[in-house]
């Protein structure tokens, strides 16, 4: 055993040396305020049986201690604040502001019509245009969104699911106009439809067609956008809808396996697409359970990929994930308290080894964040990164009896759920049967009852309340925006080459019918300024629309 331990440790050391050439550590040496040196890694004095199987070394299977050998000693996580509201022009200004403030990646929030494939002038869009994110109808909006932001210099995460292919196509087209080849583009599309049926609600098509669009994207990106994350398999919204930490892990990994199964069924090779799968988790208030959750999820995914799917490339085993702090934990009462909640949650995500992080703004229980509150949220990450010292050694919670025990138990309990989902025939079938939805709702309802009975204390809500009269300053989306956006889209329709649009949509329809990869046709359609709604409608007509039970 110890021979193998030394063996693994040497591998880790070699791995560290290799990493340091590319990403040197931020300081040399790291030490505490008292001058005590902080080592890269702390290990058990006498590694017990099972240590290598359960924990291993950072950057090595099963990745419980993190996916990189030096973690945050070399590079902090990517600070990626989700932003978007109103028009493309306004959002572009917020993006450039955030980049100026030291943010290192972009994250686009789209409005609901865009997310559900309606143009701003569709009757279904009324009242929703530009409200929860930016309104994108045509390539022109997308060009404005990224004006003066070189796409070869930023990585962009797009929270877009049912129409992910359309927005990705627009991103490719904007890159092309800027002179950036698609092979160079980096970023992530959420593209996780299963959790839309389960928890988030922005589905369009029935599961089978949706899964086909997703595997089309996998396949297209494998050849054309090798650096782009083709999906962000998201537990975030499952948790927001009321799930426990265990349910979050279980349902997310079950969905992950469904995508892998679909891609394999579509004839893709596991080690070709698996390295581009990314994950997205929530961070709630129970600090140790959250930190353990990420560690458990990473270990479970590694095992699933290696043992169940027989992936050979270590890149396929690594779970890379983004974290966002928990929106549903924020309170409308005494909103300043939310800064503290966000700090605890962000710290848990960092202790769990996240690759990127969004910290919520304190006013999100009331409205979209103002610029001031968005800055405090970013500063929270920067304080944790630069002042707290928690980033100076890899996986500092490892070996805590409590944390390791929690990690094991989360894995065990999540596996029980996954087994139940397997009995349904996998996540797609379980979603269609409403299984996850019911489980989540039950948990949400119990939680609410506990809060109302006062069994769970929520500071400022059911305890430590005060009479508040001060209404904080809130960001309001200009009511004129919807009208302006509708007019702009109508103008586009008048000025574009109508024949080229009709032709591109006809070809897209044929591709849909003939089971060809849709992506190249969508790229062609967006380039001639076919709108999100027009493209989505062609597919609606061919695939039908999903309605929840």
């Amino acid at each position, binding site marked *: 055993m110890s021979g193998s331990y030394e063996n693994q440790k040497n591998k880790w050391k070699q791995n560290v040396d290799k990493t340091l050439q590319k990403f040197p550590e931020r300081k040399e040496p790291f030490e505490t305020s008292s001058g005590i040196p902080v080592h890269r890694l702390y290990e058990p004095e006498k590694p017990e049986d099972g240590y290598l199987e359960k924990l291993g070394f950072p950057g090595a299977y099963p990745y419980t201690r993190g996916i990189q050998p030096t973690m945050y000693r070399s590079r902090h996580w990517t600070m990626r604040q989700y932003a978007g509201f109103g028009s493309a022009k306004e959002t572009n200004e917020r993006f450039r502001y955030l980049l100026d403030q030291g943010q290192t990646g972009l994250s686009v929030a789209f409005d609901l019509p865009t997310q559900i494939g309606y143009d701003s002038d569709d009757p279904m869009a009324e*009242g929703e245009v530009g409200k929860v994110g930016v309104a994108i109808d045509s390539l022109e909006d997308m060009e404005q969104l990224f004006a003066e932001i070189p796409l070869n210099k930023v990585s962009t995460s797009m929270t877009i699911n049912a129409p992910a292919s359309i927005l990705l196509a627009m991103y490719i087209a904007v890159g092309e106009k800027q002179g950036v080849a698609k092979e160079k583009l980096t970023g992530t599309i959420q593209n996780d439809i299963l959790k839309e049926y389960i928890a988030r*609600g922005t589905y369009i098509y029935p599961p089978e067609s949706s899964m086909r669009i997703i595997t089309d994207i996998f396949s297209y990106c494998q050849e054309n956008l090798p650096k782009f994350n083709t999906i962000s398999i998201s537990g975030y919204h499952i948790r927001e809808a009321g799930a426990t930490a265990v349910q979050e892990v279980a349902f997310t990994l079950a969905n992950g396996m469904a995508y892998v199964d679909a891609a394999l069924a579509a004839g893709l090779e596991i080690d070709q697409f698996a390295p581009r799968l990314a994950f997205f988790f929530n961070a709630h208030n129970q600090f140790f359970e959250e930190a353990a959750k990420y560690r458990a999820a990473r270990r479970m995914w590694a095992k699933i990929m290696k043992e169940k799917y027989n992936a050979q490339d270590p890149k396929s085993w690594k779970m890379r994930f983004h974290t966002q702090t928990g929106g549903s934990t924020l309170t409308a009462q005494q909103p300043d308290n939310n800064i503290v909640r966000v700090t605890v949650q962000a710290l848990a995500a960092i202790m769990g080894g996240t690759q990127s992080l969004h910290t919520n703004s304190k006013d999100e229980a009331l409205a979209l964040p103002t610029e001031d509150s968005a800055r405090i949220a970013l500063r929270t990450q920067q304080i944790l990164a630069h002042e707290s010292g928690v980033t100076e050694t890899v996986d500092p919670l490892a070996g805590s009896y409590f944390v390791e025990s929690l990690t094991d138990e989360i894995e065990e309990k999540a596996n029980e759920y996954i087994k139940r989902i397997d009995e349904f025939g996998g996540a797609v079938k379980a979603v269609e049967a409403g299984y996850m939805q019911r489980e989540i709702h039950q948990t949400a*309802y119990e939680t609410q009852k506990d809060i109302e009975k006062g069994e769970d204390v929520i500071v400022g809500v059911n305890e430590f309340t005060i009479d508040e009269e001060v209404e904080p300053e809130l960001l309001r989306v200009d009511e004129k925006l919807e009208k302006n956006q509708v007019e702009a889209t109508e103008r586009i329709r008048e000025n574009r080459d109508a024949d080229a649009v009709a032709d591109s949509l006809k070809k897209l329809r044929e591709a849909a019918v003939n089971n060809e990869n849709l992506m190249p046709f969508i790229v062609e359609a967006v380039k001639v300024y076919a709108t999100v709604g027009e493209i989505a409608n062609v597919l609606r007509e061919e695939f039908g629309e999903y309605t929840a039970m």
Partner: protein
Amino acid sequence: MEPIRVLIAKPGLDGHDRGALIIAQGLRDAGMEVIYTGLRQSPEQIAQAAIQEDVNVIGLSSLSGAHKTLFPKVVEALRANNAEDIPVIGGGVIPTEDIPYLEEKGVRKIFTSGTAMSDTATFIKQLVQGEETPPPNKISHIGIAVQHLEQALPFYQHSLGLPLESVETVEEEKVKVAFFPIGDTRIELLEPMDEDSPIQKFIDKKGEGIHHIALDVDNIEKRISLFKEQGISMLNETPKQGAHDSRIAFLHPKAGQGVLYELCEEKQEG
């Protein structure tokens, strides 16, 4: 009594239905029949569903910021279908400053984040049953405890110049009362008839002064049972005889932050 029927609806494109689902179940547990529309309902669809399902109230949920457009449209759609008698309430992520606008547009009440399910349930019960039980008509009278009527009368009669309407004794309460009409209401002076009179006990404890405010109501029994359902405790759970052959019942003073309220149903004329 027939259970209250509630339509919980998600107008617009918002997919966040955790709150809608929780409130639906909470209201079911409170004994109501709840129909949930599911996501992406247009105002017209919601109005139609409410009419077809014959609901007593509609609860709208929106977290996407579209409430200012969509909530009033539901009210309008009801009106267009001659169903404006179905009250509309709402909840979700709604800034406090939007509430007056929504109420002006006909939304009866907005519940913001952090509202207990039980508060919403109570409100709906009041709202629905309150449709048949209108609010009190006016202040029937203000009761003032005095030790000796004859010492108090000159101020009211001569200094204020109010006409003395009547003086009578209410044996049940062991009081002698004098009424002065003033505008649409009255001042009632109460003099204890003996040591055991509640008015004497009041004067011993607090001295002379305002004793109670009486609210003029119709259908006093129904009002009492409504209060009891809301957990408001009554000093008299069945109406008793008051002055002028009225029927009265007192609320526990803790219901009104220490003010003793009397419900008073006047004798029907003719």
